[in-house]
């Protein structure tokens, strides 16, 4: 019965011998081949093209693209917690509003420069995410969605009522001109660049996370938390970190948005429709991938602008109807549908509708 481990290849595999101990990044760079580095190259090309495009377009188009970049960042952020990790947060706008108000309060009340306020805004977002994440990430499904929705509404009400600090419902203004301005206003070209960089950073963060050990852990938590725990994944840490990373990106976006808007109210930056737009963009694109939310954000933002320009008062009505139709016809997301259809050569939309019907 005294079975000493038999030396040999079997024991090696089972008991684990140290594999290569090269650093993470060295490993990645060595692993790059022309076949698997094309997404990175394509991303770089798009980024460069967007930089070049800025010189060619009129201010209106520039503003539209700036809002597209904002939503690319927000959609990527939501996808980290809602798509990869499987916790559908309906309260991400809380981090947006907190980021916006941190920057506005610091710049307005304490004359702090934007660049000093920005990291603090991100910090506030992350701290709030960890604080509510620890208890709420134990809830599942609708319960998590409702609890996060409640947290966002609650955060708005707190900002709304801390009148002496935030100006309450009367709104807040960031000084942007003359000697009062802690940081000179960026102007349209400056914000185009700022949001472009933010979008790029969020895409890179999502892509790097997705391909890392942590990315696999998120997917495992999404699929089955019992099984994830059994293979050594600390599910609590994975969920809270994913929530925190998502919150950091959203808070950062909120900070830039605040500076861009100059003047805003709690109802603007805590507007639940920001959250819903994040969810819709991820869902329409296809969750749990990097391309899905990117395509969803670009497509939906351009569409909604098109509707606003061409349909006047009817634009929101049609927008709602489009959401309904997309949910019914492409419940797995348009990008995912197209990918699967391409692979299996089955394009029938009716078969697609049968997927989740009663």
């Amino acid at each position: 019965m005294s079975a000493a481990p038999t030396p040999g290849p079997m024991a090696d595999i089972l008991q684990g011998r140290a594999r290569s101990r090269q650093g993470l990044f060295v490993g990645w760079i060595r692993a790059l081949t022309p076949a698997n580095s094309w997404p990175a190259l394509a991303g770089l090309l798009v980024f460069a093209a967007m930089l070049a495009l800025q010189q060619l377009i009129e201010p209106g188009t520039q503003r539209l693209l700036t809002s597209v970049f904002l939503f690319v960042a927000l959609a990527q952020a939501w996808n980290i917690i809602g798509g990869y990790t499987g916790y559908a947060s309906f309260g991400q706008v809380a981090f947006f509003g907190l980021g916006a108000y941190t920057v506005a309060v610091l710049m307005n009340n304490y004359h702090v420069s934007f660049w000093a306020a920005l990291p603090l805004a991100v910090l506030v977002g992350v701290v709030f995410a960890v604080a509510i994440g620890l208890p709420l990430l134990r809830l599942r499904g609708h319960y998590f969605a409702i609890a996060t929705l409640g947290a966002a509404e609650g955060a708005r009400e707190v900002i709304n009522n801390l009148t002496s600090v935030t100006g309450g419902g009367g709104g807040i203004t960031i000084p942007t001109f003359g000697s009062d301005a802690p940081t000179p206003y960026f102007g349209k070209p400056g914000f185009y660049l700022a949001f472009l960089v933010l979008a790029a950073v969020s895409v890179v963060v999502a892509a790097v996370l997705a391909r890392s050990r942590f990315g696999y852990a998120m997917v495992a938590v999404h699929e089955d938390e019992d099984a994830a725990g059994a293979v050594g994944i600390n599910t609590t840490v994975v969920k809270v970190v994913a929530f925190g990373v998502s919150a950091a990106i959203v808070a950062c976006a909120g900070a830039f948005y605040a500076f861009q808007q100059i003047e805003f109210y709690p109802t603007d930056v805590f507007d639940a429709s920001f959250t819903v737009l994040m969810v819709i963009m991820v869902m329409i694109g296809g969750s749990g991938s990097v391309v899905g939310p990117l395509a969803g954000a670009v497509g939906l933002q351009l569409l909604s602008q098109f509707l606003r320009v061409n349909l006047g008062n009817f634009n929101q009505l049609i927008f709602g109807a489009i959401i309904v139709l997309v949910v019914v016809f492409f419940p797995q997301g348009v990008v995912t549908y197209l990918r699967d259809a391409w692979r299996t050569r089955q394009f029938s939309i009716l078969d697609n509708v049968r997927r989740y019907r009663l």
Partner: protein
Amino acid sequence: MIAPSEVPSVPVLEVRHLAKRFGGLWALRDVSFSVSEGEILGVIGPNGAGKSTLVNLITGHARPTTGQVLIGGQDVTGQRPWVIAHDRVARTFQIVKPFRGLTVRENVAIGAMHGNERDRSVRDSLATADELLDLVGIAKHANAAPMQLSVADARRLELAKALATRPRLLLIDEVMAGLRHHEIESAVELIHRLRDAGITVVAVEHVMKAIVSVSDRILVLHHGSILTLGSPREVLSDPRVIEAYLGHRYVKRRSE
């Protein structure tokens, strides 16, 4: 039974007076036993005897109402599953729980990424996964989706996932149920090979025949309590075991 002199001073797993109540029902009641290094312990019992509950309590997937679980002499009662996994305890699930969105290879690689002695990169983990898939015999399905696997192969995947965490103690929950004869034989052979590689095994089974050929000792659970614990021969000849398994009518008929 093992003679006292041969028992290592610290058992790999020790369970003391373990009990679990669900509402008004005791799923497990005052269960105590220990498993020494390199041993294969079979746990059998009819449906609802508390076998899966026992595994869940040991691996932290449920909290015991009372009692203690010790791994290598350390009290781990009520610890979360990943803490237990990092104490080099791995398990399979009776109802297989693959990560459906990933390939078979990736499923196994996750254990290598997050278990013990873990690989530093995803690429290394995938290489480890390939070796383990080869070991359990489903290397040809490495790129398949786990839902496409047959019942037997899904169980093998479950085993490979657990092994990827580099356990010293492996708890397998009904790996052989529903398998065909030759599949059971290869599973038995695999369990022996695991033991030879230094892994202590607790095998929970419903199928008596398979467990008898693989175990050093067998623990019989009945209505949440230990009915008996001993060598396969002792357990098989115990009339209480036969009665619990086959009903008293069978016992009566045999004695006639």
